[in-house]
């Protein structure tokens, strides 16, 4: 059966260059980089080389990069560590309604610890308005955390303006850039932010590794205590193949992103237009322009997401949905709801996310299969009137 993977926002395959770069560090050069002997010191050098590559991708300094076990840990570290270390400034945190749970739930955890949390609304496109931040921010605001690009609908925020407002107020600004890095240009200096999270497996690096950028001078409490690795910011024996893989993936992105973006945007347009042409009663979600490449988020009225995913799976198409039925929660996607989409419609959401290896024929295949799937489910639906 033909397999078409259109779930690159969930995870991506490790690029062959990246896997090759990681390979020696599992068995041959497996040494602990904290060890003193020369073979281990060579691994240490490779770890530092990876740090440099990641720094280069973000236009940061190598010393500003702390490796973590992924995006979730980076987000937890930034929010818990940033808020706790700067408690003297105040106990107010601002975030947005469309954040990933790794940010949202972490803020809510801090709420239980006595922090006050303001969750900014978004408009119909999923955009946080600078005005709403300006209104919500106050002297006690320790930290503002707003995601760069949304994982479900792809909307990109005006981080530069938002960060400026935070800076003017003396508040730390963190951005969850897990869905931005690898897709759009990310420049921490230009953005003027204090912290940024990324996760390697979202851009052809391995799972289980990510990093937190922490601007020089910004105080953050470490989340994991122990062996003093990562300049005392992150304890634990370094995941050397992971780190080296992340470095190689960063380099890959630096070299290929622009060309990839162009190609992916074209295919994305093909897919959008094809859906519009072939299927009635669809609602595209996300910002019409400020969107990462490759994220097609669409709701099909009268039907539900999980059934769609399973029928697509039957034909080898892999995608995801913000329907509660496909997750373990009972509520439809908090992102779509925050954008004012009714629960009924949100249940019919489908996210098709393209990647570097997506081909025109993949898109054509989806456009062949999808109308039938939607029609089959609509035929079963009590909400649909033929």
């Amino acid at each position, binding site marked *: 059966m033909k397999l078409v993977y259109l779930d690159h926002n969930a995870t991506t395959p490790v690029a062959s260059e990246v896997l090759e770069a990681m390979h020696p560090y599992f068995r041959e050069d497996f040494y602990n980089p904290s060890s003193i002997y020369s073979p281990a010191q060579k691994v240490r050098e490779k770890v530092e080389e990876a740090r440099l590559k990641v720094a280069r991708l973000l236009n940061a300094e190598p010393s500003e990069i702390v490796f973590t076990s992924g995006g979730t840990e980076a987000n937890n570290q930034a929010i818990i560590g940033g808020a706790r270390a700067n408690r003297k400034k105040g106990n107010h945190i601002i975030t947005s309604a469309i954040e990933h749970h790794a940010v949202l739930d972490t803020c809510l955890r801090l709420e239980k610890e006595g922090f006050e949390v303001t969750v900014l609304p978004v408009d119909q496109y999923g955009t946080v308005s600078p005005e709403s931040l300006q209104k919500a921010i106050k002297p006690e605001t320790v930290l503002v955390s707003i995601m760069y690009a949304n994982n479900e609908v792809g909307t990109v925020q005006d981080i530069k303006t938002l960060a400026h407002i935070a800076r003017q107020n003396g508040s730390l600004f963190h951005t969850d850039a897990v869905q931005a890095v690898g897709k759009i240009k990310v420049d921490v200096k230009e953005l003027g932010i204090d912290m940024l999270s990324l996760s390697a497996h979202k851009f052809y690096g391995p799972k289980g590794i990510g990093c937190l950028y922490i601007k020089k001078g910004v105080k953050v409490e470490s989340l994991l205590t122990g062996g003093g690795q990562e300049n005392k910011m992150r304890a634990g024996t370094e995941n050397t193949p992971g780190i080296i893989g992340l470095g190689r993936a960063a380099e890959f992105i630096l070299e290929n992103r622009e060309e990839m973006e162009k190609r992916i945007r074209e295919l994305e347009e093909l897919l959008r237009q094809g859906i519009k042409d072939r299927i009635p009663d669809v609602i595209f979600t996300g910002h019409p322009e400020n969107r990462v490449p490759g994220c097609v988020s669409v709701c099909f*009225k009268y039907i539900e997401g999980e*059934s769609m995913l399973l029928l697509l799976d039957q034909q080898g198409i892999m995608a995801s949905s913000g329907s509660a*039925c496909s997750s*373990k929660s009972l509520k439809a996607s908090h992102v779509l709801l925050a954008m004012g989409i009714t*629960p009924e419609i949100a*249940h019919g959401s489908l996210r098709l996310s393209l990647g570097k290896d997506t081909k025109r024929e993949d898109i054509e295949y989806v456009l062949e299969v999808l109308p039938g799937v939607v029609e089959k489910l609509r*035929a*079963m*639906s*009590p909400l649909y009137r033929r």
Partner: protein
Amino acid sequence: MDKMYTREVMDHFLNPRNVGSVENADGVGEVGNASCGDIMRIEIKVEDDKIADIKFQTFGCAAAIATSSMITELVKGKTLTEAEKITNKKVAEALGGLPPVKMHCSNLAADALKKAIADYRERRIDSDSSGHNLFDRADSDSKAFKDKP
């Protein structure tokens, strides 16, 4: 850490039995709520106190569709009293089990059926006493249709 669906669930989801509506249904039951992502509608035709025909329409996940399909198979031809005894658990068992997170939507099927039978019984009393048009009533019963944009 759930297992995915059983073979039976997938079979009933991919090839649902008795989809659609019964012409001049004698009883209609609809449960669920579009905002929760699941609506199940069961229509029955009753003859000699037996379920002569049964059809379903479902807006929901694969488990919801499969349980709807399964329950229609289980009760077709059964007497109303037998049909009423079908529990949600029985439907789930007939499907070889459902993942724990999906138990909530499997609850819909037996509920919809019970509601359809109750509707049939109520109409009999109503029509016996007041002679209302059954078809109109069945239609206006659907909250979902009103919600439809």
